């Protein structure tokens, strides 16, 4: 019988006389320590939120779905790997059920998975540091690739390019710097107010990495006119603030509820 030591007293002085047991979810129906049921539920949430359009993203040619605000949340709730499965599955189902928000299906699904992976790495301490390092390389490579193609291949002015994406540059900085752990600590802390701040910044960071990477690939495929970069300068921050706001509001409610309901936390969960 696996035991983990002597029992400790409760504040009222009650001391359990039985031996304390190691508690884990040992059923086989789990993905990286997250029960499949949780993954299915969150995939369903992502799919449903794919129906709700927010604005026109000229680069992708379609409106962005509310689901983009909760892709990172799946990473915090389930851990990076199970979160990516939930996000990706939900985005894939959503692409078929709500094509008006899908854009390029493979890119939407990949982006959803990337956002969840990034969020799962926005964790306190050294959790998932190898994955975080790998994603940092992706996050840094995306704007370099994008900028190189825009400026050197298509003749877009460097100023216009830099002017378009300060939002996403900030998101990438938050991800690659030690702020990643700080945001993770805010999300996992007991204080719901600080947790909401963490969810806003974390969504900003994870969704920013996703958007920068998706934009780099989209641009490589579509090569939109240089004038649009000035338009992005006004639109991108607003859209990104909306995404982050969605992540904060939905995430705060869900995390508060999950903590109150006392369901078992997946192994990789950050909340």
């Amino acid at each position: 019988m696996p035991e983990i030591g002597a029992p400790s007293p409760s504040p009222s002085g009650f001391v359990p006389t039985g031996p304390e047991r190691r508690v884990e979810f040992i059923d086989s129906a789990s993905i990286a320590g997250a029960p499949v049921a949780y993954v299915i539920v969150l995939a369903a949430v992502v799919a449903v939120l794919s129906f709700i359009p927010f604005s026109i993203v000229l680069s992708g040619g379609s409106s962005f779905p509310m689901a983009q605000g909760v892709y990172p949340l799946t990473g915090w709730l389930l851990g990076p790997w199970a979160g990516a499965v939930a996000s990706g599955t939900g985005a894939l189902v959503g692409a078929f059920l709500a094509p008006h928000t899908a854009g390029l299906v493979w890119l939407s699904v990949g982006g959803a998975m990337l956002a969840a992976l990034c969020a799962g790495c926005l964790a306190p301490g050294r959790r998932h540091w190898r994955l975080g390092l790998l994603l940092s390389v992706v996050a840094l490579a995306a704007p370099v690739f994008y900028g190189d193609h825009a400026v050197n291949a298509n003749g877009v002015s460097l100023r216009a390019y830099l002017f378009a994406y300060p939002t996403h540059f900030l998101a990438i900085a938050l991800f690659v710097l030690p702020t990643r752990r700080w945001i993770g600590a805010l999300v996992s802390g007991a204080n719901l107010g600080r947790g909401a701040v963490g969810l806003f910044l974390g969504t900003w960071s994870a969704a920013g990495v996703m958007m920068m990477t998706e934009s780099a690939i989209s641009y490589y495929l579509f090569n939109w006119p240089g004038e649009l970069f000035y338009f992005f300068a006004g639109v991108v921050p607003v859209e990104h603030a909306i995404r982050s706001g969605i992540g904060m509001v939905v995430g705060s409610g869900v995390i508060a509820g999950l903590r109150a309901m006392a369901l078992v936390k997946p192994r990789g969960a950050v909340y």
Partner: protein
Amino acid sequence: MSDAPLVTLEKVSYFYPRAVEPALRDVDLVIPRGQILALVGPTGAGKTTLCLTLNGVVPQFHGGRFFGAVRVGGDDTVEQPIHRLAARVGMVFQDPDTQLVSASVENEVAFALENLGLPAAEIRARVKSALAAVRLAEFAHKHPHDLSGGQQQRLAFAAALALRPDLIVLDEPVSQLDPRSASELFALVAETNRSHGVAFVITGHAAAELAETAHRVVVLLGGRIVADGRPDEIYADAGLLARANLRPPEVTSVFAHLAKRGVCAAGVAPVRLGDAIRALAGLPRARPYAPPEPDFAVNGLPILALRNVEHVYPDGTAALRGVGLDLFRGDYALIIGQNGAGKSTLLKHLLNLLRPTAGEVLIDGAPLARQSVAELARRIGYVPQNPDRQIFNPTVEAEVGFSLVPLRLPPKESARRIDAALRALKLEAHRRVHPFALSKGDRARVVIAAVLVMEPEVLVFDEPTTGQDEAGSRAILDLTRELHAAGRTIVVVTHHLHLMPGYARRAIVMGGGRVLLDAPLREAYHALEVLESTHLAPTQAVALARAAHADSRALTPEELADSFDRPPEGLLVMPGGKEGAA
């Protein structure tokens, strides 16, 4: 069959995640094979937690800190995967909606069997036999959500039964069932126990049914077992029941009152209706009890009126057939009837959530259909049966105050209303707590508070005492009485008929979509033929009163006890019919 116990709990203590006090405290319990064990206790005593330890959901799914060991058939539930334990321990929850997942009745029963990888022929055979056992074979191809509440509960039971488990756990299985469906479910439990040797753990507040069916009653209080004995031992212990907020069967209360009045000896009282009726033979003959009906004044025009209302659902089901009904200001009306009698459909018409297929619904003489649902919500407060479907805010205070936001009241007025509602429902201490951190009984009170802040003229309660212990039920009903005394119109739909004397003044008996009887409570409770026609059983007090005297119209144990004269000095009648010295 092995002599080893089926279930053993050894020094089991359990803390939910982030909880500072345990839900279970050093619980030791042994359940032999084939035993029907009733697990009773007040709301929050740890009954559901204990049930969930039996199939490993606690602690495997909930996490937290777990001490001691639970073994089912020798398997340690902390070490075995839940899906393996599920084959030994079937679980049926209070709300069958939460566990019905398939698109047809037979698929629902087959679902768990398919997950266990049984051969198709074996699955077909088990599905057939389980559906036959619960008398749902003719509904095999129906969608589970097209079944009535009682049928859904039986379907969940069949799904558990098909696994051929050693143990079936029924957590508050009859709280949403009409009395006839509840009796049928308990009869099914007894039959399954006899024919298949399946052991049962049943939680709940249905004292009369548990006393009839259980072999043993365990009382849980504050996470500890405080009593363990036969039903007649436990339910006759008035001190224990009072301490644990439990209600004895009404027949036991009758004999307790008789003992207090010196009509019979104190001590062991009958806990089953049959025993109580037999014990009447030893008592002095009862006088007919028929107090004059109080005259209730009717105040002008009805606030709500239904005129020849019919409602036919798209699938052709006629749920209301020519219903005519007046609800007056200051009324306290009880609506009763079997599952599927049309009660919920009627309520939805009062709230403008459904429109009549024919006829009309009036509010203060004007067509109710002209009012929006939002406008009506300010006049008619609706407290639904399942609180979880209504709760979505992160704190109790936010939940209670949410409906005030669109009213744009001054902050002081909002705060006053929220404080008053929290105080009335005894929720002040939970103000900052997440509603889902509370027990189901407390969550129901949160929803009532959220309706109260709107200060509506009419309050409609749909099964308000579901899942509540004796104290919780009384607190809610006392609140309805206070609101009624303050001039509100109260409508209550409930299957818990025994709780309503002293509260409701009028009963509307529904059956087959019609109003079968609209009469003062006493008259309706004693209209046995009408109750029978809508598959309602009379309360134990009423049944015993009629057995004591055909003309008796006693409603409560106290009234029934009042109809007996004290025997001559020095003689006390034992409940079994013998006489003894005082």
